[in-house]
């Protein structure tokens, strides 16, 4: 069973790697050919040494000169083979891995929002960095060894056997035993070293916390107990380190034996054979040289195995992503209607089973009207937004856009109907102009300026030394939260979609600029249907209808005036929030 699953993951690993290196068949074949030639050269070298010694001892200078010519040919061939081996392997490895990264990026862009947001972003990043790098280094460092090593081992054994099979047997007699012993002793090391690194990581995190909590440590005079705690953890890690050192030193003799015993046995028995005239001196030297080559190859095997194993893990994680289900691409586009752009009818939804975030929510969004969603955090406001954009599908009820159920829509066409300004105003690295243009790639500069004016962003952009060409994002100019928000509003304005969704879009603006943006948005929303999520009274007040959400239900609905007179949840909520907002 386990054997089966092991071999199936191996097959999968190979088939995935094969899929990516197939376009570079030429280089793969070059690398394989080069590795065969390199192996042959290495073997020939030993053979030529033997011939040289035998001829030199026989004083056959003529023959010797012939061999020197052969040596020269071999050196040139070996040089070319080694050059191309490194070059070709590196080349197809790099190219294949580049394709892999592109494939991952394409797949990422096709995944559903729910999958990407449920995954920890660190995990997603490590796919394209650590996992892909592990595969690259395996391909360029170890893959040709899979060809080279077996050729060397098999032909060396055949050659040595043909020279003297008894000596071959004797030389390697003890090797399996030593390998077994070394393996046996090394077994606990794996666990010990994971203990060691675990303890070290723990100690580091305790130390980190000690540093982060320095103010408390000082305020409570806790330096001594804190130090004692950290010391305890580091000592614990150190003692795990000692255990590894002990185990490794126990293992050491058998490792030395693994390297040296074949040579020692060959020295003893081969020397005896040579002195008795049963083995030529050249053959003895060939034996000694080739034994070294063999030992080096055998010693590398465990390394190769563990490397292959970790690469199989990396390949597995990458395949998981490449094979993850994408968002649906079926459905069609429908023409916009004049009224009732969005109808939400008795919708129920929860991210987890049996845990409804919203239940039985119904409302209609009409052209020229604004609906505000109000409620404490966790009441389901943002969830409604997620459902509208079909990032998630409702479990019950229906959502109609332009009179057609979301299920019949093509997702891209559907999302074209919305302009969204969300809570987190994400800017991509690039210029401000680039970032606004994301709303409509084909827009010309005038349209971008127009949109930035609507968003109240034009004046501050003008004041930046490089204006619209200012670099923003991770490595660019640091913009304030309010400035970022205005850029994302401009982006949404540029999109000119019939439905406008604002999720706390003006929360980071100061009162004055908020009033400006608000005014612009009011004009803008005349021929749009608008849904806003907001805390601020000024934003909510202008809505034609306010929906007060409480634990996923619409608890109250009406205009600001109506709801204040109702003296219910909205009234109470309102008072609490206004007090919070006041920075004293």
């Amino acid at each position, binding site marked *: 069973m386990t054997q089966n699953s092991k071999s199936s993951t191996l097959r999968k690993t190979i088939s995935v790697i094969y899929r990516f290196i197939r376009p570079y068949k030429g280089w793969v074949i070059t690398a394989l050919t080069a590795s065969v030639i390199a192996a042959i050269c290495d073997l020939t070298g030993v053979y030529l040494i033997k011939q040289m010694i035998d001829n030199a001892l026989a004083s056959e200078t003529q023959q010797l000169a012939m061999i020197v010519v052969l040596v020269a040919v071999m050196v040139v061939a070996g040089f070319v083979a080694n050059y191309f081996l490194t070059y070709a392997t590196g080349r197809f490895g*790099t190219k294949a891995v580049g394709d892999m990264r592109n494939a991952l990026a394409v797949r990422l862009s096709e995944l559903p929002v729910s999958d990407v947001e449920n995954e920890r972003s660190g995990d997603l990043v490590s796919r394209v960095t650590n996992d892909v790098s592990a595969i690259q280094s395996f391909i360029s460092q170890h893959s040709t060894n899979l060809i080279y090593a077996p050729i060397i081992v098999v032909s060396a054994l055949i050659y040595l056997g043909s020279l003297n099979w008894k000596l071959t047997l004797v030389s390697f007699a003890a090797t399996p035993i030593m390998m077994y012993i070394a393996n046996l002793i090394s077994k606990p090391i794996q666990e010990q070293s994971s203990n060691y690194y675990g303890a070290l990581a723990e100690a580091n995190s305790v130390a980190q916390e000690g540093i982060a909590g320095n*103010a408390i440590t000082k305020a409570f005079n806790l330096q001594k107990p804190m130090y004692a705690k950290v010391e305890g953890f580091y000592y614990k890690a150190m003692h795990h380190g000692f255990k590894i050192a002990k185990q490794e030193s126990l293992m050491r003799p058998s490792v030395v034996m693994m390297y040296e015993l074949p040579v020692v046995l060959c020295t003893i028995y081969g020397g005896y054979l040579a002195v008795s005239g049963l083995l030529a001196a050249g053959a003895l*030297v060939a034996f000694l040289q080739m034994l070294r080559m063999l030992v080096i190859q055998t010693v590398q095997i465990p390394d190769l195995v563990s490397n292959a194993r970790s690469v199989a893990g990396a390949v597995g994680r990458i395949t998981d992503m490449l094979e993850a289900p994408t968002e649906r691409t079926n459905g069609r586009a429908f023409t916009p209607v004049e009224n009732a752009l969005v109808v939400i009818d008795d919708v129920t939804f929860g991210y987890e089973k049996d845990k409804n975030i919203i239940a039985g929510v119904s409302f209609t969004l009409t052209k020229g009207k604004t609906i505000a969603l109000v409620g404490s955090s966790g009441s389901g406001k943002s969830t409604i937004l997620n459902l509208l954009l079909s990032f998630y599908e409702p479990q019950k009820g229906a959502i109609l856009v332009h009179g057609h159920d979301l299920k019949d829509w093509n997702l891209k066409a559907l999302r074209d109907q919305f302009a969204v300004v969300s809570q987190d105003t994400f800017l991509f690295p690039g210029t401000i102009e680039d970032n606004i243009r994301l709303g409509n790639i084909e827009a010309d500069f005038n349209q971008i300026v127009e949109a930035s004016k609507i968003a109240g962003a034009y004046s501050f952009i003008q004041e930046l030394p490089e204006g619209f060409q200012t670099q923003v994002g991770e490595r660019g100019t640091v913009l304030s939260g309010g400035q970022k928000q205005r850029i994302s509003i401009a982006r949404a304005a540029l999109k000119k979609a019939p439905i406008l969704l604002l999720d706390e879009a003006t929360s980071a603006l100061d009162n004055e600029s908020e009033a400006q943006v608000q005014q612009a948005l009011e004009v803008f929303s005349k021929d749009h249907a608008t849904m806003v999520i907001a805390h601020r009274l000024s934003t909510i007040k202008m809505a034609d209808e306010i929906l007060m959400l409480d634990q996923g239900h619409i608890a109250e609905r009406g205009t600001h005036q109506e709801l204040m007179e109702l003296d219910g949840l909205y009234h109470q909520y309102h008072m609490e929030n206004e007090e919070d907002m006041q920075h004293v």
Partner: protein
Amino acid sequence: MFKKWNFPEFFRMMSLMQRQLWNYLITLCLIAGIYSAHMILLAFINERLLNGAISGDQELLTSAIVLTCVVLVLACITSPIAMYLFDLAVHRALTHLKLRLFKKIQDLPVSYLEKRHSGDLISAITNDVNSVEQAYRYHLYLLVEAIFYGTGSTIAMFVLDWRLSMLMVVLGMASAYFTTKYAGPLREIGDKVQTAMSDMTVHWVDMVGGFRLLKVFKISGFVLERFGQKNEAIVAHNIERIRLDSQLKGINYLLSIFSLIGVFVVGSFMVASGEIDFGTVMGIVTLQNGVAFLFLNFGNFFTNLQGSLAGSKRIYDILNAESEPDHYNTSGSSKGDEAISLRGLDFSYDGREKVLQGLSFDIRPGQVAALVGPSGSGKSTVIKLLLGFYEPTGGNLSINGRPLSAYTLEELRDQIAYVPQEAFLFEGTIEENIAHGRPDATHDDVVRAVKLANAHEFISDMSQGYATRVGERGIRLSGGQRQRIAIARAILRDAPILLLDEATSALDTASEQLVLEALQTLMKGRTTVAIAHRLKTIEHADVIFVLEKGKIVEKGTHHELLKQEGVYSRLHNIQFAESLT
């Protein structure tokens, strides 16, 4: 080669080992010595073996065999012991270094810690110590081994035959020359690959971070194209690196094959003309590894060491930073029995902008004083000065009638129980965290404090009660729970002065009520200085100081201040009006 390298920095790095230095150096030399002796003896064994085989000399052969066995047995016994002792020395040295750093960081003044990200400091203990470990464990190890093995081999080689040895030395130097020649360009292109990689990673992270934008706006194609360009750059740089790499591999192949087969070729002709015996050739071939090893590692050592030296410099920067002083020099301001008394107190973080300007006030024992004012008015700075986190730049300060200079910082902090704005808890159990208030407290003491802090109920409801682990920085608890544990910690501390820094600002209404009740208990019989945003929470204070731009603009009780119709009453009216809209 030597220009880039500075010896003082290197010796400084070595001295970080402190007491372990000699253990380390001795075991290091032992390991290298054993290995080199083993390898060099192998050459003489091979010489005898081959000469014995050629001439059929039984005696030579026997001596070779005996020597082989002796060397093997010695290597198997001595090298594990030396390696074990070496490992112990390195582990000890590094552990002590980490602890020294941690202790030093603990003792650094708050000003130093607030200027640097805590991630930078922990990185000294992890990354920088690791880079020093690289030097101890590998770079220096390889250097010493290269010196022992290399010089030993070279000498042994010249003893065997000087003519062939000259050839080997020339080949070794050529190999070192090419390796160093390629090292620069290879490192350069390696850096380029790294930069391209991180560029690509940034774009990937942005795709994940801006994933909703990707879906809502029609920009997948655009973003993917940009990602593709970055990816293309990695591939291009990598191929350039591979080109250089394969050239170097080819050259190294040539040199190594020359020093193996080349020696046999030259040797064979010399043997044929009777100038040398084959045993000697074989001996030299065996030794050539050592010579190559010397040249290669000697060249690499200096480049490899750079990273470790940079790490050790950062470590020294921390170890040499000035610690928090034992006490401050601020003189006293009162001869009376005020619990806290400030006279003309000035303070500035950067020496230019004054955060506090001539601040004066008195708080009598048992009084509750509140600090009110807009953010940036200096409220939190007052708390930090009282905790001794910073030294006042001017003016006088007395605590319990004694000048600040009369207290060591430890004594000063013993007078104070502090509830910070965000309750910082340490990974560990709830009980451990509360006991931080007074490390010698019994379990009953802890329970009593917890009950007063309104926390007993929720702690008892947890399946593991007081033994519940709070998680890193207390993340497994809610904000209100953390705050009540911080209050219990302060209650247990039982200090005469209580400092509250907006202790309830992060809480929802329900838990705020519980925390406020707990605070009432805590304030009883203690001198309290409280900062609050919500004026409601400090209406009952004995005295309220209103701060603006580092000065006190109004003071009095709630009612007095309302009557004055100044800043306080304005603030109050705004909050009150908002609550009625």
